[in-house]
């Protein structure tokens, strides 16, 4: 079929006003339906006519999915809350600044105005072979074009590969892992709660998805427990262009200190694997230290254990190592 791009084929637009109605529609349309949040990922797919759902379920009219609320044990962010709202929210800025910081690093102001936190964590990978509609594993085919010997894969993964070598593009995902956020996923059977780090899955589990969510699942809320409120945070994203760019590598870390000593830590990195990677071995290594240079150096080395470069992305190994070092150093 000759390729046409940049033209959205017709679809039925469904605009539920409650989560319940949205879930009913998702049950009704299953694989033929498509859940639309901010549209920044969806419309790219639609424009390129690669994903052609017959029905699009627009969450934009569901008020209960929007906004940030204080809850008993922390804050709760509706999945349809815009990244701008998160970036500007005083409660998040003061207590979970890493989440605001991560949201601020997404693309451009226009995109943050339109993009939602739910969409940001649920978005598909940006592997350009996959995005070109090539029949790769992730698209249901039997080849990873990005891992072929001469492939252009400088933005692909250095760990966690399983046939597919794409990376998770979300800026907020590692920050949510760092604050031990809980993802509330609902379907008509009721809600389930996932730790942020378990919400994202790799291709060895399901090569066609980035998250645990199936076609009938909806991410409705993200809860950030107070456990990590006001911790010492570090967030950094390295990208090619100063704005409107996905990460090459990003790091998000939260530290609890007692005096000068790190008592607890959570560190996650994105851009290195098909899912955001929590670095538990690094966390174990640094707990009890002061984040001194020797610890930082060791943390960096531990972080990249097992990392394996593709042809064009060897640089991600030192980049990841250095970012983890910096995160640890930031405590000292």
């Amino acid at each position, binding site marked *: 079929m*000759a390729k046409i791009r940049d033209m959205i*084929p017709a679809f039925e637009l469904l605009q539920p006003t409650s989560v319940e109605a949205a879930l009913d529609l998702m049950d009704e349309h299953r694989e033929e339906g498509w859940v639309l949040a901010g549209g920044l990922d969806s419309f790219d797919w639609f424009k390129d*006519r690669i994903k052609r759902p017959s029905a699009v379920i627009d969450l934009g009219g569901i008020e209960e999915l929007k906004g940030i609320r204080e809850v008993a044990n922390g804050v709760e962010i509706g999945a349809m809350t815009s990244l701008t709202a998160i970036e500007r929210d005083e409660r998040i800025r003061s207590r979970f600044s890493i989440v605001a910081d991560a949201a601020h690093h997404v693309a451009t102001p226009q995109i943050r105005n339109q993009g939602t936190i739910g969409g940001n964590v649920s978005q598909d990978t940006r592997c350009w072979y996959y995005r070109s509609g090539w029949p790769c594993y992730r698209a249901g085919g039997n080849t990873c074009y990005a891992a072929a010997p001469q492939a*252009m894969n*400088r933005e692909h993964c250095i760990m966690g590969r399983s046939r597919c070598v794409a990376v998770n593009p979300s800026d907020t995902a590692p920050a949510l892992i760092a604050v031990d956020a809980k993802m509330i996923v609902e379907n008509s059977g009721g809600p389930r709660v996932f730790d942020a780090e378990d919400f994202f899955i790799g291709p060895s589990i399901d090569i066609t998805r980035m998250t645990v969510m199936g076609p009938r699942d909806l991410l409705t809320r993200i809860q950030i427990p107070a456990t990590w409120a006001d911790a010492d945070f570090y967030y950094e994203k390295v990208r090619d*262009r100063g*704005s*409107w*760019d996905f990460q090459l590598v990003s790091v998000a870390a939260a530290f609890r200190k007692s005096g000068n000593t790190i008592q607890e830590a959570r560190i996650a990195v994105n851009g290195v694997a098909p899912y955001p990677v929590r670095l538990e071995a690094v966390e174990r290594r640094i707990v009890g230290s002061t984040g001194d240079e020797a610890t930082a150096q060791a943390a960096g080395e531990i972080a990249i254990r097992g990392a394996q*470069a593709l042809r064009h992305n060897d640089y991600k190994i030192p980049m990841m190592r250095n970012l983890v070092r910096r995160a640890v150093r930031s405590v000292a």
Partner: protein
Amino acid sequence: MAEKLIGTDIAPPDLHAKITGRAKYAEDFRAPGMVFAKLLLSPMPHARVRDIDASRALAMPGVIDILTADEVPSREGPREAALTNHPRYEGEPILAVAAVDEETAAAAIEAIRVDFEPLPFAIDPLESLRPGSPNAYVEGNQYGQEGWSEYKWTAADFAAIDRGEFPDPECPVEWSKGDVEAAFAESELILEETIVHQSLTHHPMEPRTNMAYWENDRLYAFVSTQSTQATKFALAGALEMDPEDITFVSEYCGGGFGSKISGTTIMQVPALFSRKIGRPVMLRITRYEENYIGRARPGFQSWLRMGFLGNGKCNAIDLIIVQESGPYGASDFNTAGMIADLTYTPGNMRFRGVPVYTNTPPKAAQRGPGGAQIISMMEPILEKAARELGIDRYEIHMLNAPGPDVAFGPRGTTLTSVHAREALELGAEMFDWEAKSALSGQRNGTKVTGIGIGLSPYTAGSRDRDGMMVIRPDGKLYVHQGIGNLGTHSIADTARPAAELLGLSWDDVVIVWGDTSKGLPRSTVQAGSQTTHAHTRANHAAGMDALRKVREVAAATLGGSAAAYRVDNGRVSGPGGSMTFGQVAQRAIAMGGEYDGHVLPEDIHEQTVPAAQMLVGQGLLGIARDNYGGEGSIYSWVAGFAVVELDVETGAVELKEYLGVTDCGTVLHPRSLGAQVLGGSIQGMGMAMTQRWVFDPKWGVPFANRLYTARPPGMLDVPANLRWGSVGIADPQTPVGAKGIGEPPVGAGAAALTCAVADAMGGKCLCRTPLTPDIILAELEGRPLPFGRLDQHVG
């Protein structure tokens, strides 16, 4: 006294329409019965169409017809046709379908089966010179008077290249001056580098959309193009029709950067399709399609040897450029050789060039073609010489920059004026070079400061165009501009000299542009930074003609000698009294003859004559050819100064400060000039640092086809307080003194950054673009690069 127009900030007349969204670009036009066309693009980099089955598409409700390659003009050799059965790059248009709406046309394209036979293809130009490697054409990779042939370097050439040596191949283009070998023997320092400059698409905001319809045998074409009058003639040439049978409309153009100079090849499709089906045809080009058919800057793979005397003077250059020419050719490499000689004045130079056809999207001039590439790559090497010789980097730029006596290139080309050193001087003063250069290498945490200077010339003018204007009975001056309107304000700004000569306030000036039915004179193409120079001259000449006629009409009406009449504020006054320009216009119509255009000057171009005849009898016609003449080429300069911070742990580079200082003669419109200097510099920064185009070698197709993956820089990627300046020295050979400015900033912005990054890396020149964090970090960490030092299209 009337207001001074030259050198002041005056909002252009199209500003309001643009910011309110009322400006009509090509895709905003509609015509009764209009249908939409969509293109079917080749999925392969090189192929032959064996069979087309459009039966399903043609049977779809709403589908009108198909236009194939057999129905568009084609020519022998490496020449592009609007549609082809022999695609030579992925994305080349094969056929078009018209339907009542765009979605139907798109669905119809998807329903067409084309049987392609894939052919061997060439993506990397240097690789395609290896013995036995595939050629971009079935017939060969070189085209000359004898037709096609195969041109390869020898196995020995490649053995030398693979050993990392400076090769000595036979090249189709070669020139030299002085005694290069003897000069190198005298050099205190010889630097030898391999250079890779990437190929980049143009990415204008407006894709090359166009619409056309016919009324009887008259073609109405609405086209996105940089030029107006020149494009009308190009379209007539392509369709082999009388230009005067075309009404050509192009009021606004959302950028071209050299990719839409005299229109586009694809503009033939709606015209031919409309003629076939008898209905207006709109062909909206998408961002995706623009990426393929929208032209690209040719990449270079190059070897450079530069010799320096002990005082830092470059005394010899040996330069070999392999140019990626795409399927239909480009000539950047020639310009690059000339600009290298001009900028470093070595006295002794050998230039060898090899343009190589490739199965990559077509190449064309891109803002500073050839110059931007070579300047961004050679400036860091000049600065490297300064370091090695212990000379201040500003001083080495000053020492090597040309003076008024410059004669460059194989034919000893001279310049009308050159104030490159003054630009450097003013820049060093505004930038505070002394203080800033002390920051070089300073480390703040993991960040290292780098400072760089880029000096970039480019052509900036041409001569011999026509100016045409009418003073109508309403007393206003209607300046007819045949140049295009691509956002540079030159449609308005180049009219200022005439208005000033006639003593008119700007409110009394009406710019007529963008529609040939209004009568537009022969103009330069809106490219090569020519318009400011060419059309301030042409309009000055026509303004002088109008002024003479106003005085003569006044003298004939009021009495006295014409020479005794003066113009001011829309009136002409002299010994016999005073009359308004409105009265003058009415009187001119009554007088007829040359005054109202019944008699035209004999030396105006034949293209201007029919346009002038449209204006006969409408008022006092000022019309003249630019006969001011001149000696030498017209070049403008920009000296860019940059401060960057390089994070040695991530390879990320942040621009902290930038200043661009230009020598472009008299400043016509300061605000617009600043926008050009900085806009062009930012475009160059993108070229050097973030922008990219990548090809998969297995499939021969490009990636980074989207703006977010291609990464041209935007407002958020540079500091808010970029600065600019101008030496403001008038060019003595042109009546207004103004030269063009569009192109030289690109090389300056790019080179200031390539130099600053090298400076932050302690003088290490990576000698390739883009300087993205991956290759910088690999260098800093001592890790090998994943590709060969001469590989093109990677990253």
